[in-house]
């Protein structure tokens, strides 16, 4: 049981990383990023290929974050010119473009066949330990680090400016600050975190292919952030935990309800998640930890 819970915890922590990155972009700065999964994919492929080529794991993780950051730089510049809603649509398309590039460039990415046999974290580090445990430790460390950095960032003058941008961009401009630079920085930072999450995912699942990087994941992350409460660091964590409890917990509901077949359960699972989200939006639109007034 512990090993299973640990496996769920690893996935939950990887999602938490993604949610933290998105929260920085949307919760604190108001950037609508519908392309989370694209940067996640870039991270996964970068680190997977780097480590498969014989480089050590830390290099893979670093390059993953760097590659995701680099890929978001040009599109981040767009955020200066496009209004919120248009930017959201561009991002949706950008993530899909990344997926198509991965599918087409099969000399590098294996195309639709994907990459099998990526070294797990413990194998890449040359340890004999259980890969789930090692991934858990590394991912937990990454989550803690990202939380600490985010807290520091939010409390700094930089944090005040980005929250001001979220609340009223024109007012920020009127005060003589230039919002563009801040928005691009936040965008790149958040996506670097998504790239890191992708790298950890690749070394945990050990097999990656384009059909694992579809927009559904982006919306899972949005659901987690909204449920937890956008603009709250704790909200990102709580939202992901709640999402995972719904997704994975439903497996056990069937063990205590023997009359329900797995076939029916998979439909019930989706229904319950949808219902829970609707009820939450009806009775607590600001999210579990959110405060009224913040988006």
């Amino acid at each position, binding site marked *: 049981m512990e090993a299973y819970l640990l*496996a769920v915890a690893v996935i939950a922590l990887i999602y938490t990383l993604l949610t933290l990155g998105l929260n920085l972009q949307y919760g604190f700065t108001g950037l609508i990023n519908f392309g989370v999964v694209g940067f996640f994919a870039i991270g996964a492929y970068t680190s997977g290929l780097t480590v498969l080529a014989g480089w050590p794991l830390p290099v893979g993780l670093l390059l993953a974050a760097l590659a995701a950051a680099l890929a978001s730089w040009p599109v981040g510049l767009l955020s200066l010119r496009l209004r919120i809603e248009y930017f959201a649509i561009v991002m949706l398309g950008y993530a899909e473009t990344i997926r198509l590039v991965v599918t087409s460039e099969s000399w590098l990415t294996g195309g*639709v066949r994907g990459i099998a046999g990526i070294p797990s974290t413990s194998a890449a580090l040359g340890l004999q330990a259980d890969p789930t445990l090692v991934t858990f430790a590394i991912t937990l460390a990454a989550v803690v680090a990202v939380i600490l950095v985010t807290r520091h960032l939010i409390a700094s003058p930089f944090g005040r400016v980005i929250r001001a941008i979220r609340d009223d961009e024109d007012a920020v401009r009127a005060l003589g600050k230039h919002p563009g630079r801040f928005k691009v920085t936040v965008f790149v930072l958040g996506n670097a975190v998504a790239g890191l999450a992708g790298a950890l995912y690749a070394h945990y699942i*050990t*097999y990656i292919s384009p059909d694992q990087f579809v927009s559904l994941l982006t919306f899972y992350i949005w659901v987690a952030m909204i449920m937890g409460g956008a603009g709250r660091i704790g909200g990102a964590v709580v939202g992901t935990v709640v999402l995972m409890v719904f*997704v994975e917990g439903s497996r056990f509901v069937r063990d205590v309800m023997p009359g329900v077949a*797995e*076939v029916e359960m*998979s439909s019930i699972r989706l229904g319950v998640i949808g219902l829970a989200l609707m009820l939450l939006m009806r009775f607590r639109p600001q999210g579990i930890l959110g405060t009224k007034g913040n988006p």
Partner: protein
Amino acid sequence: MYRAIRTAALASLLTSVAAVAVTVPAAAADKTFSVGALNPVSGAGGTYGTGMQKAIILAAEEINAAGGACGTRIAVVAEDTQTSPEAAVLAAKKLVEVNKVQVVMGTWSSGVTLAVMPITTAAGVPLMNTSGAPAISTEDKEDLVWRFQATNGRFGQAFSEIAALRGFQRPATMAYNNASGLGNTEGFEQAWTARGGRLVSKVVYEPKQASYRSELQQILAANPDVVVMGSYLPDTTIILREWFQSGENPDLKWIIPGWAANEKLVEALGPEVTAGIIAVDSISNENAPSYARFGEAYARATGEPAGANVYAAMTYDMMILWGLAMQASCPDLAPRAINARLRAVDDPTGEAVYGFAEGKAALEAGKTINYEGASSQLALDEYGDVTPDFSLSVITDGKIVRERVVSLGVK
């Protein structure tokens, strides 16, 4: 004194009866063997997953009805992969760690199988799948992964065999851009060039287009005499319609996998367009008694004919073959010990058996057996992949008429 003895005797008798009464079910409960059914109940494989899961349960019931394997009842724990590697990894972890299953069967898509393999192998649990990707064979370092579906490469070999039989000289290929589509046409190219032939043109097309006219033009411009397809039903329908409408190369022939060239294709396009199309499929063991028994049980359980879901017959065979291996490995029921016996109950030199009860009786009589499955003859090769026969059918007057069986032989 006498009373005391009598009371004591009675009491001891009662307690021993009670003890027996208690221990019997307890012993029976101890002797169950947990099997994990990990199927694509939702997601892209949703059409097949339900039937696959039911087939595993049907086979387990058949084993239990015959007194179990090695005196042990089979208990099936079912999980959904959602046809997603990530969900499948967690489901597999749950099956192995929480439900303590000792074998996992029925993963469908290659991505799921490749993601689940490291987990089951690390736990020493065998994994039986119906995926096509070649990487599964090479990643299986401990011989714990078994494949009950013809690999895409084998389909390609069958295509090449058939193209040669028909005397084609100038083949071209068209492939749907996914692992299975590419696997089929690349397998064909490999086998065809090994024969000394060459391809006049090859095209890979992106899924879900409304029209494939430009891809088709590219193929037709090379003037092939046959086009070998690695395709699915929707795209095949569009491509054939556009070919017929264009009026070019009216004598062109098509070799198409059976899952795309079926009754639905004829229904959509009519007998004139589909005339002469060569359909190739791995054949379920349709004439074997195992297929008849499975087909009847499956129809009773699901209300659908067994032919509607080829993967169900494969998962049925997984469970029956595993049960026979348990019987052969008796009394050692450790997963690895049973795993090592899988080839022994599928021994080409053994006596052919078509069901669990029959096989169990033969094993108890000390014979070597060869389980002839409902899905194929099985014949697991050195990679743990089955070697099914293929059928060559030609669509004539809107009917799919089987011309011959193509056997690639055990390699």
